[in-house]
C-alpha cells in the first residue's frame, strides 16, 4: 500500500484571498435577503501576530516593552505562549485564519484589521461585530506579570486604533483579573470609550471571581450598564486534560469545561442575586453544555440547598437569564438542538456569533436555515437580542423588532 504523502498536494486554496474565501457567505446573504436582517456578530477575532508591533507601542513600561520586543526578535513573542495554530487548522486543511494572516499586507496593522473586519461584515451581511483578541484571550495564564500591562495595551490599542476607525466594530475589553484593583481601574478608565460595550473574562482562569476582592469590579460594571462576557478557551496543560491526545478531544471538552466551571461558580455563589442587573454573556462554548448543567445543578440543589443560601430559585432559572452566543452551533442532530434552544429560551437569550476567522466558524445562514425557528426567532438570534444586550442601534431603514412585551423578553436584558 502506498502510504507516503509527499504534500503539498494539488490545490488552489493555498493563496485564497480573504474576501474571496468569503464570497460564498456573500452569496448566502444575498439569497436570504440579509440586507434587511439586522445582524450582530457577537464574537469575532483578530490575530495579534501581525498587529503585535503596534500593540507593543501601548505597553506602558519601557523596560517591559523592550523585553517583549527583544525577546521576539521582530516576531510576536510572549513567554510561555503555546502555538496551536497548525493544530487548530487541522494540519493546514482549513483556511480562514490563514487567509486572515496573509491578507492586506499594504496596510498598517490596525488598518488591516479594520479592513478585514469590513470585508467579513460586508460578506456575511453583519451590521456590527464584537472584536476580540486571539492569543491574548489567555493573558490570565501568562507568566512574567504580563497580564495587567498586556490587557491595558490591548485596551488602548483597540480603543485608539481600531474602534474609532469604524463605528460598526465594538468590543468587550479583556479584564486583567489577576489584579482586581487594576481590572477595576480599567473599567473606570475605558467604560465610556466609544465602542466599549462591556468587559470580558476568559473562562480559562483560576481566580475565585465570587470573592470579596472582585465585588467592587462587578458592581462597577453593573452600575455602568455594561455587559460581562465569559469567553471560552482551553488548555492542554491542566492535569485532567493532559490525557487528551487529540485536538478534537481537547477542544470538544475544554471549551465547555471552563464555561461549566465559571457558570457553576457564578450561579451557586449567588452572583445573579448579588448583581441582578449585570448582564452575563457566555461566548464560544457552544450550547450543548447548557442543558446538561441546568439539569445537574437543579438535581443537586434540591438536596444541598444549604450550600447555596443566596439562591431564591432553581439554578436553571438563573441560567435561563444568561445570554449565550451560538458558535460553535452543535447542529449534527436538529432534534437535540431544538430541545436545547427551548431549554435556553433561545428566542430571547441567544446571540449569533461567527468566531471568524477560526476553524469552526459559523456564517449567519447557519441560524437563518434552522428549520424549527420562525422568522421572528431568527431575527432575534441574528441581531435583535444583541441589540438589547450590547446596546446597539438598529438602522431606521431596516425592519424593526416587535415591542418587547409581545415576545416575552426578560427584564434582565
Amino acid at each position, binding site marked *: 500500500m502506498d502510504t507516503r504523502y509527499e504534500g503539498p*498536494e494539488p490545490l488552489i486554496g493555498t493563496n485564497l484571498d480573504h474576501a474571496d*474565501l468569503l464570497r460564498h457567505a456573500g452569496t448566502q446573504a444575498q439569497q436570504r435577503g440579509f440586507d434587511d436582517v439586522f445582524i450582530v456578530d457577537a464574537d469575532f477575532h483578530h490575530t495579534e501576530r501581525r498587529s503585535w508591533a503596534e500593540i507593543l507601542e501601548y505597553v506602558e513600561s519601557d523596560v517591559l516593552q523592550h523585553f517583549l520586543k527583544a525577546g521576539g526578535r521582530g516576531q510576536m513573542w510572549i513567554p510561555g505562549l503555546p502555538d496551536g495554530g497548525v493544530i487548530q487548522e487541522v494540519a493546514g486543511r482549513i483556511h480562514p485564519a490563514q487567509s486572515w494572516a496573509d491578507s492586506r499586507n499594504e496596510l498598517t496593522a490596525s488598518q488591516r484589521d479594520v479592513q478585514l473586519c469590513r470585508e467579513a461584515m460586508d460578506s456575511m451581511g453583519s451590521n456590527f461585530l464584537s472584536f476580540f483578541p486571539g492569543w491574548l484571550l489567555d493573558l490570565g495564564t501568562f507568566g512574567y506579570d504580563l497580564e495587567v500591562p498586556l490587557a491595558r495595551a490591548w485596551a488602548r490599542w483597540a480603543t485608539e486604533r481600531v474602534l474609532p476607525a469604524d463605528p460598526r466594530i465594538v468590543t468587550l475589553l479583556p479584564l486583567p483579573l489577576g489584579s482586581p484593583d487594576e481590572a477595576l481601574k480599567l473599567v473606570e478608565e475605558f467604560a465610556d470609550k466609544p465602542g466599549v460595550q462591556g468587559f470580558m473574562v476568559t473562562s480559562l482562569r483560576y481566580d475565585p471571581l465570587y470573592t470579596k476582592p472582585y465585588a467592587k469590579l462587578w458592581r462597577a460594571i453593573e452600575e455602568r450598564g455594561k455587559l460581562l462576557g465569559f469567553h471560552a478557551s482551553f488548555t492542554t496543560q491542566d492535569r485532567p486534560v493532559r490525557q487528551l491526545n487529540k485536538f478534537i478531544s481537547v477542544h470538544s471538552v475544554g471549551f465547555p469545561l471552563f464555561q461549566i466551571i465559571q457558570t457553576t461558580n457564578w450561579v451557586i455563589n449567588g452572583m445573579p442575586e448579588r448583581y441582578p442587573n449585570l448582564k452575563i454573556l457566555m461566548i464560544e462554548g457552544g450550547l450543548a453544555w447548557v442543558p446538561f448543567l441546568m439539569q445537574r445543578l437543579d438535581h443537586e440543589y434540591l438536596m444541598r440547598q444549604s450550600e447555596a443560601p443566596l439562591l431564591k430559585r432553581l439554578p436553571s432559572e438563573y441560567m435561563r437569564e444568561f445570554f449565550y452566543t451560538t458558535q460553535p452551533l452543535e447542529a449534527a442532530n436538529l432534534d437535540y438542538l431544538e430541545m436545547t434552544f427551548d431549554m435556553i429560551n433561545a428566542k430571547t437569550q441567544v446571540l449569533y456569533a461567527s468566531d471568524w476567522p477560526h476553524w469552526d466558524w459559523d456564517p449567519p*445562514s447557519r441560524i437563518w436555515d434552522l428549520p424549527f425557528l420562525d422568522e421572528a426567532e431568527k431575527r432575534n438570534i441574528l441581531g435583535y437580542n444583541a441589540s438589547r444586550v450590547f446596546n446597539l442601534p438598529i438602522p431606521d431603514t431596516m425592519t424593526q423588532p416587535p415591542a418587547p412585551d409581545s415576545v416575552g423578553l426578560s427584564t434582565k436584558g
Partner: protein
Amino acid sequence: MSIVSQRTRVGVRAEVADNKRIMAHVDGREIVVFEHRGRLYGFENLCPHMGGPVCEGKLAPRVEAVLDSDGAVIEERFDKNEWRIVCPWHGVEFKIEDGVCAADPKYRLRRIEANYDGDDIYVS
C-alpha cells in the same frame, strides 16, 4: 441526474495541468474540474455542510490507524488509495471517487461528469 443541462466545454487540458483547477459557471452553478492521477473530477463548488467553496480546498489522502493483533495502535498513516477534497471553510472531507462525506454520508457533493475530447474538457 446531472445538474448540468447540456454538454458544455469548460476548458483545455493545460488548465488542469500542474495541479491547477478549472472553475466555471454552468447553468448558474459554480463548478470545479480538476485532474488527479490522470483522471478528471468535476463537482459543484458548494459544500453541503455550510456552503463553503469546497473545491478550492486541499486534496488530502485518508488517514488510517493501523492496529496490531492485540488492538494496540501501531501507527497512523496516509492511505493514498483514497483521496479526499477538503472544504477550506471547516475541513469537511469528501471522497473524490463519489463525493460522499468521509465523516457522515448524509453529506454528499454534487458530481459532474468531466471528460477530455482531444485537448478540450467538457462537463455534462
